[in-house]
Protein backbone atom coordinates (compact mmCIF):
# COMPACT_ATOMS: atom_id res chain seq x y z
CA UNK A 1 0.00 0.00 0.00
CA UNK A 2 1.16 3.49 -0.69
CA UNK A 3 1.13 5.92 2.16
CA UNK A 4 -0.81 8.56 0.31
CA UNK A 5 -4.46 9.21 0.77
CA UNK A 6 -6.85 8.71 -2.09
CA UNK A 7 -7.38 12.15 -3.69
CA UNK A 8 -11.17 11.89 -3.64
CA UNK A 9 -11.18 11.04 0.07
CA UNK A 10 -8.88 13.95 0.68
CA UNK A 11 -11.24 16.34 -1.08
CA UNK A 12 -14.12 15.00 0.97
CA UNK A 13 -12.15 15.48 4.16
CA UNK A 14 -11.30 19.08 3.33
CA UNK A 15 -14.92 19.72 2.48
CA UNK A 16 -16.06 18.32 5.82
CA UNK A 17 -13.45 20.29 7.70
CA UNK A 18 -14.32 23.54 5.96
CA UNK A 19 -18.06 23.22 6.44
CA UNK A 20 -17.50 22.40 10.10
CA UNK A 21 -15.15 25.34 10.48
CA UNK A 22 -17.80 27.78 9.30
CA UNK A 23 -20.11 26.74 12.14
CA UNK A 24 -17.28 26.77 14.62
CA UNK A 25 -15.86 30.15 13.73
CA UNK A 26 -18.97 32.13 12.87
CA UNK A 27 -19.97 33.19 16.41
CA UNK A 28 -16.42 34.31 17.09
CA UNK A 29 -16.27 36.37 13.92
CA UNK A 30 -19.66 37.82 14.72
CA UNK A 31 -18.36 38.83 18.15
CA UNK A 32 -15.31 40.52 16.62
CA UNK A 33 -17.32 42.36 14.03
CA UNK A 34 -20.10 43.44 16.40
CA UNK A 35 -17.51 44.90 18.75
CA UNK A 36 -16.55 47.27 15.95
CA UNK A 37 -20.03 48.35 14.97
CA UNK A 38 -21.93 51.53 15.51
CA UNK A 39 -25.20 51.15 17.37
CA UNK A 40 -27.34 51.43 14.27
CA UNK A 41 -25.55 48.61 12.49
CA UNK A 42 -25.77 46.06 15.30
CA UNK A 43 -29.26 44.81 14.76
CA UNK A 44 -28.95 44.13 11.06
CA UNK A 45 -29.67 40.48 10.44
CA UNK A 46 -28.15 38.80 8.60
CA UNK A 47 -25.22 40.68 10.05
CA UNK A 48 -22.65 42.53 8.00
CA UNK A 49 -19.41 40.76 8.74
CA UNK A 50 -17.08 43.63 8.00
CA UNK A 51 -18.48 46.64 9.77
CA UNK A 52 -18.67 49.82 7.84
CA UNK A 53 -17.73 52.21 9.33
CA UNK A 54 -15.28 50.58 11.75
CA UNK A 55 -16.01 51.95 15.18
CA UNK A 56 -13.14 51.59 17.65
CA UNK A 57 -14.92 53.72 20.25
CA UNK A 58 -16.13 50.71 22.18
CA UNK A 59 -12.58 49.74 23.04
CA UNK A 60 -11.76 53.30 23.99
CA UNK A 61 -14.83 53.38 26.24
CA UNK A 62 -13.77 50.21 28.04
CA UNK A 63 -10.26 51.53 28.44
CA UNK A 64 -11.67 54.64 30.08
CA UNK A 65 -14.34 52.93 32.15
CA UNK A 66 -12.21 50.46 34.05
CA UNK A 67 -8.72 50.37 35.46
CA UNK A 68 -7.61 48.25 32.55
CA UNK A 69 -3.85 48.10 33.18
CA UNK A 70 -4.14 47.14 36.83
CA UNK A 71 -6.83 44.50 36.28
CA UNK A 72 -4.83 42.90 33.48
CA UNK A 73 -1.73 42.76 35.67
CA UNK A 74 -3.75 41.22 38.52
CA UNK A 75 -5.24 38.65 36.19
CA UNK A 76 -1.89 37.63 34.76
CA UNK A 77 -0.41 37.43 38.24
CA UNK A 78 -3.12 35.10 39.52
CA UNK A 79 -3.31 33.03 36.38
CA UNK A 80 0.42 32.40 36.07
CA UNK A 81 0.67 31.24 39.68
CA UNK A 82 -2.34 29.00 39.21
CA UNK A 83 -0.85 27.55 36.03
CA UNK A 84 2.42 26.60 37.70
CA UNK A 85 0.64 25.16 40.71
CA UNK A 86 -1.89 23.22 38.76
CA UNK A 87 0.48 21.76 36.14
CA UNK A 88 3.08 20.51 38.59
CA UNK A 89 0.69 19.27 41.27
CA UNK A 90 -1.66 17.52 38.83
CA UNK A 91 1.14 15.64 37.12
CA UNK A 92 2.73 14.82 40.49
CA UNK A 93 -0.43 13.32 41.97
CA UNK A 94 -1.33 11.61 38.70
CA UNK A 95 2.09 9.98 38.59
CA UNK A 96 1.50 8.59 42.06
CA UNK A 97 -1.88 7.19 41.10
CA UNK A 98 -0.70 5.74 37.81
CA UNK A 99 2.60 4.21 38.84
CA UNK A 100 2.30 2.70 42.28
CA UNK A 101 0.17 0.08 43.95
CA UNK A 102 -0.83 0.95 47.47
CA UNK A 103 -3.76 0.11 49.67
CA UNK A 104 -5.68 3.35 49.42
CA UNK A 105 -4.99 3.83 45.74
CA UNK A 106 -8.45 2.74 44.63
CA UNK A 107 -10.11 4.90 47.23
CA UNK A 108 -8.10 8.02 46.36
CA UNK A 109 -8.79 7.43 42.68
CA UNK A 110 -12.51 7.18 43.33
CA UNK A 111 -12.51 10.30 45.49
CA UNK A 112 -10.68 12.09 42.68
CA UNK A 113 -13.39 11.05 40.24
CA UNK A 114 -16.13 11.97 42.72
CA UNK A 115 -14.76 15.47 43.34
CA UNK A 116 -15.34 16.14 39.65
CA UNK A 117 -19.06 15.81 40.40
CA UNK A 118 -19.27 17.89 43.55
CA UNK A 119 -22.15 20.35 43.24
CA UNK A 120 -20.22 23.59 43.51
CA UNK A 121 -23.33 25.71 43.84
CA UNK A 122 -24.09 24.34 47.29
CA UNK A 123 -20.49 23.93 48.47
CA UNK A 124 -19.56 27.48 47.57
CA UNK A 125 -20.87 29.01 50.78
CA UNK A 126 -19.23 26.53 53.19
CA UNK A 127 -15.98 27.00 51.26
CA UNK A 128 -16.35 30.71 51.90
CA UNK A 129 -16.65 29.93 55.62
CA UNK A 130 -13.29 28.13 55.51
CA UNK A 131 -11.53 31.10 54.01
CA UNK A 132 -13.25 33.44 56.42
CA UNK A 133 -12.00 31.26 59.27
CA UNK A 134 -8.47 31.43 57.81
CA UNK A 135 -8.84 35.20 57.71
CA UNK A 136 -8.07 35.12 54.00
CA UNK A 137 -11.06 37.00 52.62
CA UNK A 138 -10.21 39.88 50.33
CA UNK A 139 -6.94 38.24 49.27
CA UNK A 140 -5.75 36.04 46.43
CA UNK A 141 -5.19 32.98 48.65
CA UNK A 142 -8.62 31.42 48.06
CA UNK A 143 -7.96 31.64 44.34
CA UNK A 144 -4.42 30.30 44.13
CA UNK A 145 -3.76 27.99 47.08
CA UNK A 146 -6.06 25.13 45.96
CA UNK A 147 -4.34 24.94 42.58
CA UNK A 148 -1.14 23.75 44.28
CA UNK A 149 -2.95 20.79 45.79
CA UNK A 150 -3.98 19.13 42.55
CA UNK A 151 -7.39 19.57 40.98
CA UNK A 152 -9.37 16.50 39.97
CA UNK A 153 -9.66 17.52 36.32
CA UNK A 154 -5.90 17.92 35.91
CA UNK A 155 -5.09 14.76 37.83
CA UNK A 156 -7.53 12.72 35.77
CA UNK A 157 -6.18 14.07 32.50
CA UNK A 158 -2.55 13.48 33.45
CA UNK A 159 -3.36 10.06 34.88
CA UNK A 160 -4.90 8.92 31.60
CA UNK A 161 -1.94 10.25 29.66
CA UNK A 162 0.72 8.70 31.89
CA UNK A 163 -1.09 5.37 31.82
CA UNK A 164 -0.88 5.32 28.05
CA UNK A 165 2.92 5.69 28.11
CA UNK A 166 4.91 2.45 27.82
CA UNK A 167 5.66 0.72 31.15
CA UNK A 168 9.17 -0.18 30.10
CA UNK A 169 10.15 3.44 30.52
CA UNK A 170 9.88 3.24 34.27
CA UNK A 171 11.66 -0.05 34.58
CA UNK A 172 14.63 0.97 32.48
CA UNK A 173 14.94 4.14 34.56
CA UNK A 174 14.98 2.17 37.81
CA UNK A 175 17.77 0.05 36.41
CA UNK A 176 19.68 3.24 35.73
CA UNK A 177 19.38 3.99 39.46
CA UNK A 178 16.84 6.79 39.48
CA UNK A 179 14.62 7.41 42.49
CA UNK A 180 10.86 7.83 41.86
CA UNK A 181 10.97 11.65 42.17
CA UNK A 182 13.92 11.63 39.81
CA UNK A 183 12.03 9.48 37.34
CA UNK A 184 9.06 11.79 37.58
CA UNK A 185 10.94 15.02 37.04
CA UNK A 186 13.60 13.79 34.60
CA UNK A 187 11.68 11.33 32.47
CA UNK A 188 7.93 11.57 32.83
CA UNK A 189 7.42 15.30 33.12
CA UNK A 190 9.18 15.99 29.79
CA UNK A 191 7.27 13.15 28.14
CA UNK A 192 3.99 14.62 29.36
CA UNK A 193 4.52 17.77 27.36
CA UNK A 194 1.55 17.25 25.01
CA UNK A 195 -0.85 16.65 27.90
CA UNK A 196 0.70 19.41 30.00
CA UNK A 197 0.28 21.84 27.12
CA UNK A 198 -3.36 20.88 26.79
CA UNK A 199 -3.89 21.13 30.54
CA UNK A 200 -2.07 24.46 30.51
CA UNK A 201 -4.54 25.85 28.01
CA UNK A 202 -7.51 24.60 30.05
CA UNK A 203 -6.09 25.88 33.32
CA UNK A 204 -5.37 29.26 31.82
CA UNK A 205 -8.86 29.40 30.39
CA UNK A 206 -10.50 28.36 33.64
CA UNK A 207 -8.48 30.71 35.80
CA UNK A 208 -8.73 33.61 33.39
CA UNK A 209 -12.49 33.31 32.99
CA UNK A 210 -13.18 32.66 36.65
CA UNK A 211 -15.41 35.49 37.77
CA UNK A 212 -17.34 33.84 40.58
CA UNK A 213 -14.26 33.29 42.77
CA UNK A 214 -12.93 36.85 42.50
CA UNK A 215 -16.48 38.19 42.83
CA UNK A 216 -17.05 36.47 46.13
CA UNK A 217 -13.61 36.69 47.70
CA UNK A 218 -12.34 40.09 46.58
CA UNK A 219 -13.66 43.24 48.16
CA UNK A 220 -10.98 45.74 47.30
CA UNK A 221 -11.36 47.11 43.80
CA UNK A 222 -7.58 47.30 43.50
CA UNK A 223 -7.47 43.51 43.57
CA UNK A 224 -10.03 42.94 40.82
CA UNK A 225 -9.29 40.77 37.82
CA UNK A 226 -9.95 41.82 34.25
CA UNK A 227 -13.01 39.65 33.58
CA UNK A 228 -14.53 40.78 36.88
CA UNK A 229 -13.94 44.39 35.90
CA UNK A 230 -15.54 43.74 32.55
CA UNK A 231 -18.66 42.36 34.24
CA UNK A 232 -19.43 45.93 35.25
CA UNK A 233 -20.12 46.65 31.62
CA UNK A 234 -23.14 44.39 31.89
CA UNK A 235 -24.47 46.44 34.77
CA UNK A 236 -26.77 48.68 32.85
CA UNK A 237 -28.59 48.17 29.60
CA UNK A 238 -25.42 48.88 27.64
CA UNK A 239 -25.42 48.28 23.93
CA UNK A 240 -24.34 45.01 22.47
CA UNK A 241 -21.31 46.43 20.69
CA UNK A 242 -19.75 47.43 23.99
CA UNK A 243 -20.51 44.02 25.49
CA UNK A 244 -18.85 42.31 22.56
CA UNK A 245 -15.78 44.54 22.82
CA UNK A 246 -15.53 43.38 26.42
CA UNK A 247 -15.94 39.77 25.31
CA UNK A 248 -13.18 40.15 22.72
CA UNK A 249 -10.80 41.57 25.31
CA UNK A 250 -11.52 38.62 27.60
CA UNK A 251 -11.11 36.10 24.82
CA UNK A 252 -7.98 37.20 23.01
CA UNK A 253 -5.43 36.26 25.72
CA UNK A 254 -6.84 32.73 25.77
CA UNK A 255 -6.50 32.48 22.00
CA UNK A 256 -2.90 33.64 22.24
CA UNK A 257 -2.06 31.12 24.95
CA UNK A 258 -3.71 28.45 22.83
CA UNK A 259 -1.65 29.38 19.78
CA UNK A 260 1.50 29.26 21.86
CA UNK A 261 0.64 25.88 23.39
CA UNK A 262 -0.61 24.31 20.18
CA UNK A 263 2.90 23.60 18.96
CA UNK A 264 3.56 21.68 22.17
CA UNK A 265 0.69 19.29 22.15
CA UNK A 266 1.04 18.31 18.55
CA UNK A 267 4.81 18.11 18.32
CA UNK A 268 5.05 14.40 18.46
CA UNK A 269 6.65 12.22 20.96
CA UNK A 270 7.86 10.23 17.98
CA UNK A 271 11.24 11.93 18.34
CA UNK A 272 11.86 10.39 21.75
CA UNK A 273 12.63 7.05 20.22
CA UNK A 274 10.04 4.93 21.89
CA UNK A 275 9.14 1.47 20.84
CA UNK A 276 6.93 1.19 17.85
Amino acid at each position, binding site marked *: *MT*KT*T*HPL*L*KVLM*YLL*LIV*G*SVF*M*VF*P*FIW*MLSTSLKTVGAISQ*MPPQLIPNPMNWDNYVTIWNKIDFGRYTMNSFFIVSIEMVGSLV*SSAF*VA*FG*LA*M*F*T*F*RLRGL*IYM*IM*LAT*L*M*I*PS*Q*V*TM*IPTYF*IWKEFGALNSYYPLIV*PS*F*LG*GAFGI*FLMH*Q*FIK*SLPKELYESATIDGCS*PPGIFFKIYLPLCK*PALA*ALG*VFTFMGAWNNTLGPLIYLQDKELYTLPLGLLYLKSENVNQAL*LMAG*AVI*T*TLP*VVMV*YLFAQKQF*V*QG*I*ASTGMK*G
Partner: protein
Amino acid sequence: MQKQGYWGYIFTLPFVVNVVVFLLFPIVFSTYISFTEWDLFNAPRWIGLDNWVRVLNKHEFWVSIRNVFVFALIFVPIQTIMAFVIAFMLNQAIRAKGLFRLFYFLPVVTPWIAGGVVWVWMFNYQYGVINWALESMGLDPVKWIDSSNWLMVISSIAIVQVWKGVGQSMIMILAGMQNVPKEVLEASQIDGANGWKQLTKVVFPMVTPMVYLVMILSTISAFQAFDVFLGLFGSITTGIPERNMVPNLLVYRDAFLLFKMGPASATAWLLFVIILVFTLFQKYFEKKWVHYD
Protein backbone atom coordinates in the same frame (compact mmCIF):
# COMPACT_ATOMS: atom_id res chain seq x y z
CA MET B 1 2.58 -0.78 38.42
CA GLN B 2 5.33 -0.40 40.97
CA LYS B 3 5.35 -2.01 44.34
CA GLN B 4 6.97 0.69 46.50
CA GLY B 5 3.59 1.69 47.84
CA TYR B 6 4.77 4.42 50.22
CA TRP B 7 5.79 6.47 47.18
CA GLY B 8 2.17 6.37 46.15
CA TYR B 9 1.16 8.07 49.39
CA ILE B 10 3.87 10.69 49.01
CA PHE B 11 2.87 11.55 45.47
CA THR B 12 -0.84 11.73 46.21
CA LEU B 13 -0.41 13.65 49.47
CA PRO B 14 -1.18 17.11 48.00
CA PHE B 15 -4.53 15.92 46.78
CA VAL B 16 -5.36 14.24 50.07
CA VAL B 17 -4.61 17.52 51.85
CA ASN B 18 -6.83 19.31 49.35
CA VAL B 19 -9.71 16.98 50.10
CA VAL B 20 -9.31 17.11 53.86
CA VAL B 21 -8.86 20.87 54.18
CA PHE B 22 -10.99 22.30 51.42
CA LEU B 23 -13.53 19.70 50.37
CA LEU B 24 -14.49 17.66 53.39
CA PHE B 25 -16.15 20.43 55.36
CA PRO B 26 -18.15 21.86 52.44
CA ILE B 27 -19.40 18.37 51.61
CA VAL B 28 -20.38 17.58 55.19
CA PHE B 29 -21.91 21.01 55.67
CA SER B 30 -24.00 21.08 52.51
CA THR B 31 -25.19 17.53 53.14
CA TYR B 32 -26.22 18.58 56.63
CA ILE B 33 -28.04 21.58 55.16
CA SER B 34 -30.05 19.26 52.92
CA PHE B 35 -31.72 17.96 56.10
CA THR B 36 -32.54 21.42 57.36
CA GLU B 37 -34.49 24.52 56.52
CA TRP B 38 -31.92 27.24 56.01
CA ASP B 39 -32.50 30.69 54.52
CA LEU B 40 -28.79 31.65 54.70
CA PHE B 41 -29.56 34.02 57.58
CA ASN B 42 -31.30 32.34 60.48
CA ALA B 43 -29.96 29.19 62.12
CA PRO B 44 -30.64 26.02 60.11
CA ARG B 45 -33.61 24.09 61.49
CA TRP B 46 -33.41 20.29 61.34
CA ILE B 47 -36.36 18.87 59.42
CA GLY B 48 -35.08 15.39 58.67
CA LEU B 49 -35.92 14.01 55.26
CA ASP B 50 -38.52 16.67 54.40
CA ASN B 51 -36.44 18.38 51.70
CA TRP B 52 -35.59 15.09 50.04
CA VAL B 53 -39.17 13.92 50.08
CA ARG B 54 -40.46 17.24 48.82
CA VAL B 55 -37.91 17.38 45.99
CA LEU B 56 -38.63 13.79 44.97
CA ASN B 57 -42.35 14.53 44.90
CA LYS B 58 -41.95 17.52 42.66
CA HIS B 59 -42.86 17.18 39.02
CA GLU B 60 -40.22 19.71 37.98
CA PHE B 61 -37.45 17.63 39.55
CA TRP B 62 -38.29 14.55 37.50
CA VAL B 63 -38.71 16.62 34.37
CA SER B 64 -35.28 18.11 34.93
CA ILE B 65 -33.74 14.68 35.49
CA ARG B 66 -35.39 13.34 32.34
CA ASN B 67 -34.07 16.32 30.40
CA VAL B 68 -30.52 16.07 31.59
CA PHE B 69 -30.56 12.32 31.02
CA VAL B 70 -31.66 12.72 27.41
CA PHE B 71 -29.27 15.63 27.05
CA ALA B 72 -26.37 13.41 28.09
CA LEU B 73 -27.57 10.58 25.89
CA ILE B 74 -27.44 12.82 22.83
CA PHE B 75 -24.46 14.95 23.75
CA VAL B 76 -21.91 12.43 25.02
CA PRO B 77 -21.75 10.06 22.02
CA ILE B 78 -21.81 12.85 19.44
CA GLN B 79 -19.18 14.84 21.28
CA THR B 80 -16.89 11.84 21.81
CA ILE B 81 -17.12 10.51 18.27
CA MET B 82 -16.75 13.93 16.68
CA ALA B 83 -13.79 14.79 18.89
CA PHE B 84 -12.05 11.60 17.85
CA VAL B 85 -12.81 12.00 14.15
CA ILE B 86 -11.73 15.63 14.05
CA ALA B 87 -8.58 14.91 16.06
CA PHE B 88 -7.77 12.08 13.67
CA MET B 89 -8.30 14.22 10.59
CA LEU B 90 -6.27 17.06 12.04
CA ASN B 91 -3.43 14.72 12.84
CA GLN B 92 -3.05 13.80 9.15
CA ALA B 93 -0.66 15.26 6.68
CA ILE B 94 -3.04 17.91 5.41
CA ARG B 95 -2.70 21.55 4.59
CA ALA B 96 -3.48 24.29 7.09
CA LYS B 97 -4.09 21.87 9.93
CA GLY B 98 -2.88 24.43 12.45
CA LEU B 99 -5.53 26.80 11.24
CA PHE B 100 -8.23 24.12 11.32
CA ARG B 101 -7.24 23.17 14.85
CA LEU B 102 -7.61 26.79 15.89
CA PHE B 103 -11.01 27.01 14.22
CA TYR B 104 -12.33 23.97 16.02
CA PHE B 105 -11.01 25.27 19.30
CA LEU B 106 -12.49 28.77 18.98
CA PRO B 107 -15.97 27.90 20.32
CA VAL B 108 -14.33 26.77 23.56
CA VAL B 109 -13.11 30.30 24.15
CA THR B 110 -16.05 32.15 22.65
CA PRO B 111 -18.05 33.51 25.62
CA TRP B 112 -21.72 32.55 25.89
CA ILE B 113 -22.59 36.21 25.74
CA ALA B 114 -21.58 36.04 22.06
CA GLY B 115 -22.25 32.38 21.30
CA GLY B 116 -25.73 32.52 22.84
CA VAL B 117 -26.81 35.51 20.78
CA VAL B 118 -25.68 33.92 17.53
CA TRP B 119 -27.27 30.55 18.23
CA VAL B 120 -30.53 32.13 19.34
CA TRP B 121 -30.58 33.99 16.07
CA MET B 122 -29.76 30.87 14.04
CA PHE B 123 -32.57 28.97 15.80
CA ASN B 124 -35.10 31.81 15.35
CA TYR B 125 -38.29 30.30 13.99
CA GLN B 126 -39.25 33.06 11.57
CA TYR B 127 -35.99 34.80 10.86
CA GLY B 128 -33.28 32.26 11.64
CA VAL B 129 -30.70 31.04 9.16
CA ILE B 130 -31.41 27.35 9.76
CA ASN B 131 -35.09 27.62 8.92
CA TRP B 132 -34.22 29.88 6.03
CA ALA B 133 -32.05 27.09 4.64
CA LEU B 134 -34.80 24.52 5.22
CA GLU B 135 -37.37 26.69 3.47
CA SER B 136 -35.15 27.34 0.50
CA MET B 137 -34.87 23.58 0.10
CA GLY B 138 -38.66 23.41 0.09
CA LEU B 139 -38.95 22.04 3.62
CA ASP B 140 -41.13 23.27 6.46
CA PRO B 141 -39.53 25.48 9.10
CA VAL B 142 -38.97 23.88 12.48
CA LYS B 143 -39.40 25.30 15.98
CA TRP B 144 -36.06 24.54 17.62
CA ILE B 145 -35.54 25.97 21.06
CA ASP B 146 -39.08 27.38 21.35
CA SER B 147 -40.75 24.13 20.43
CA SER B 148 -43.49 22.80 22.69
CA ASN B 149 -41.82 19.43 22.27
CA TRP B 150 -39.18 19.13 24.99
CA LEU B 151 -37.22 16.54 23.04
CA MET B 152 -36.68 18.99 20.20
CA VAL B 153 -35.53 21.69 22.62
CA ILE B 154 -33.17 19.42 24.52
CA SER B 155 -31.65 17.97 21.32
CA SER B 156 -31.11 21.43 19.86
CA ILE B 157 -29.34 22.53 23.02
CA ALA B 158 -27.26 19.35 23.06
CA ILE B 159 -26.02 20.24 19.58
CA VAL B 160 -25.03 23.70 20.78
CA GLN B 161 -23.17 22.09 23.66
CA VAL B 162 -21.27 19.92 21.16
CA TRP B 163 -20.34 23.08 19.28
CA LYS B 164 -19.02 24.53 22.51
CA GLY B 165 -17.23 21.48 23.86
CA VAL B 166 -15.90 19.42 20.98
CA GLY B 167 -12.73 21.52 20.67
CA GLN B 168 -11.64 20.79 24.21
CA SER B 169 -12.18 17.05 23.82
CA MET B 170 -10.43 17.13 20.46
CA ILE B 171 -7.33 18.60 22.06
CA MET B 172 -7.20 15.93 24.74
CA ILE B 173 -7.43 13.20 22.14
CA LEU B 174 -4.92 14.99 19.95
CA ALA B 175 -2.51 15.05 22.86
CA GLY B 176 -3.08 11.32 23.30
CA MET B 177 -2.34 10.72 19.63
CA GLN B 178 1.16 12.07 20.11
CA ASN B 179 1.94 8.80 21.83
CA VAL B 180 1.11 6.88 18.71
CA PRO B 181 4.36 6.29 16.83
CA LYS B 182 4.64 8.05 13.52
CA GLU B 183 4.94 4.92 11.40
CA VAL B 184 1.63 3.65 12.73
CA LEU B 185 -0.04 6.92 11.97
CA GLU B 186 1.37 7.14 8.48
CA ALA B 187 0.16 3.68 7.74
CA SER B 188 -3.31 4.70 8.81
CA GLN B 189 -3.74 7.59 6.41
CA ILE B 190 -7.23 7.30 5.07
CA ASP B 191 -6.73 5.23 1.96
CA GLY B 192 -9.59 2.85 1.92
CA ALA B 193 -10.16 -0.42 3.69
CA ASN B 194 -6.66 -0.94 4.93
CA GLY B 195 -6.47 2.52 6.42
CA TRP B 196 -9.82 2.02 8.13
CA LYS B 197 -8.52 -1.16 9.68
CA GLN B 198 -5.42 0.65 10.86
CA LEU B 199 -7.55 3.36 12.33
CA THR B 200 -9.85 1.09 14.29
CA LYS B 201 -7.36 -1.63 15.13
CA VAL B 202 -4.22 0.38 15.82
CA VAL B 203 -4.79 4.10 16.36
CA PHE B 204 -8.06 3.92 18.27
CA PRO B 205 -6.88 1.40 20.87
CA MET B 206 -3.81 3.52 21.56
CA VAL B 207 -5.87 6.59 22.37
CA THR B 208 -8.62 4.80 24.30
CA PRO B 209 -7.36 6.17 27.64
CA MET B 210 -7.98 9.67 26.33
CA VAL B 211 -11.28 8.72 24.72
CA TYR B 212 -12.35 7.27 28.05
CA LEU B 213 -11.33 10.52 29.74
CA VAL B 214 -13.37 12.53 27.25
CA MET B 215 -16.38 10.28 27.79
CA ILE B 216 -16.32 10.58 31.57
CA LEU B 217 -15.75 14.33 31.52
CA SER B 218 -18.49 14.86 28.92
CA THR B 219 -20.94 12.81 30.94
CA ILE B 220 -20.28 14.82 34.08
CA SER B 221 -20.51 18.13 32.26
CA ALA B 222 -23.73 17.04 30.54
CA PHE B 223 -25.44 16.24 33.83
CA GLN B 224 -24.22 19.52 35.24
CA ALA B 225 -25.33 21.53 32.20
CA PHE B 226 -26.07 25.11 33.21
CA ASP B 227 -24.25 27.71 31.11
CA VAL B 228 -25.57 26.47 27.79
CA PHE B 229 -29.15 26.81 29.03
CA LEU B 230 -28.57 30.30 30.31
CA GLY B 231 -26.73 31.16 27.10
CA LEU B 232 -29.77 30.24 25.04
CA PHE B 233 -32.62 31.19 27.39
CA GLY B 234 -31.24 34.32 29.00
CA SER B 235 -31.80 34.01 32.73
CA ILE B 236 -33.97 32.05 35.11
CA THR B 237 -36.07 35.09 35.88
CA THR B 238 -37.14 35.31 32.25
CA GLY B 239 -39.18 32.18 32.90
CA ILE B 240 -37.65 29.11 31.26
CA PRO B 241 -40.62 26.72 30.83
CA GLU B 242 -40.69 23.86 33.28
CA ARG B 243 -40.42 21.24 30.56
CA ASN B 244 -37.00 22.66 29.53
CA MET B 245 -35.50 22.80 33.03
CA VAL B 246 -32.34 21.02 34.14
CA PRO B 247 -31.36 20.27 37.76
CA ASN B 248 -28.62 22.87 38.10
CA LEU B 249 -31.02 25.62 37.09
CA LEU B 250 -33.33 24.50 39.89
CA VAL B 251 -30.44 24.47 42.34
CA TYR B 252 -29.41 27.98 41.38
CA ARG B 253 -32.98 29.26 41.61
CA ASP B 254 -33.61 27.74 45.02
CA ALA B 255 -30.25 28.70 46.48
CA PHE B 256 -29.64 32.20 45.21
CA LEU B 257 -32.99 33.61 44.13
CA LEU B 258 -35.28 32.03 46.72
CA PHE B 259 -32.72 31.54 49.51
CA LYS B 260 -33.92 27.99 50.14
CA MET B 261 -30.65 26.23 50.73
CA GLY B 262 -32.28 23.03 52.01
CA PRO B 263 -34.08 21.95 48.83
CA ALA B 264 -31.19 23.29 46.76
CA SER B 265 -28.73 21.04 48.60
CA ALA B 266 -31.03 18.03 48.39
CA THR B 267 -31.45 18.51 44.62
CA ALA B 268 -27.72 19.00 44.17
CA TRP B 269 -26.79 15.86 46.07
CA LEU B 270 -29.42 13.81 44.30
CA LEU B 271 -27.86 14.88 41.04
CA PHE B 272 -24.45 13.98 42.44
CA VAL B 273 -25.64 10.45 43.17
CA ILE B 274 -27.03 10.07 39.67
CA ILE B 275 -23.78 11.22 38.07
CA LEU B 276 -21.81 8.93 40.33
CA VAL B 277 -23.90 5.93 39.31
CA PHE B 278 -23.36 6.72 35.66
CA THR B 279 -19.65 7.17 36.10
CA LEU B 280 -19.34 3.89 37.96
CA PHE B 281 -21.28 2.26 35.16
CA GLN B 282 -18.79 3.62 32.64
CA LYS B 283 -15.89 2.64 34.85
CA TYR B 284 -17.22 -0.90 35.05
CA PHE B 285 -16.88 -1.26 31.29
CA GLU B 286 -13.51 0.50 31.22
CA LYS B 287 -11.52 -2.73 31.29
CA LYS B 288 -13.40 -4.09 28.30
CA TRP B 289 -12.23 -1.49 25.82
CA VAL B 290 -9.67 0.89 27.29
CA HIS B 291 -6.08 -0.20 26.67
CA TYR B 292 -3.43 1.11 29.00
CA ASP B 293 -0.10 0.68 27.26
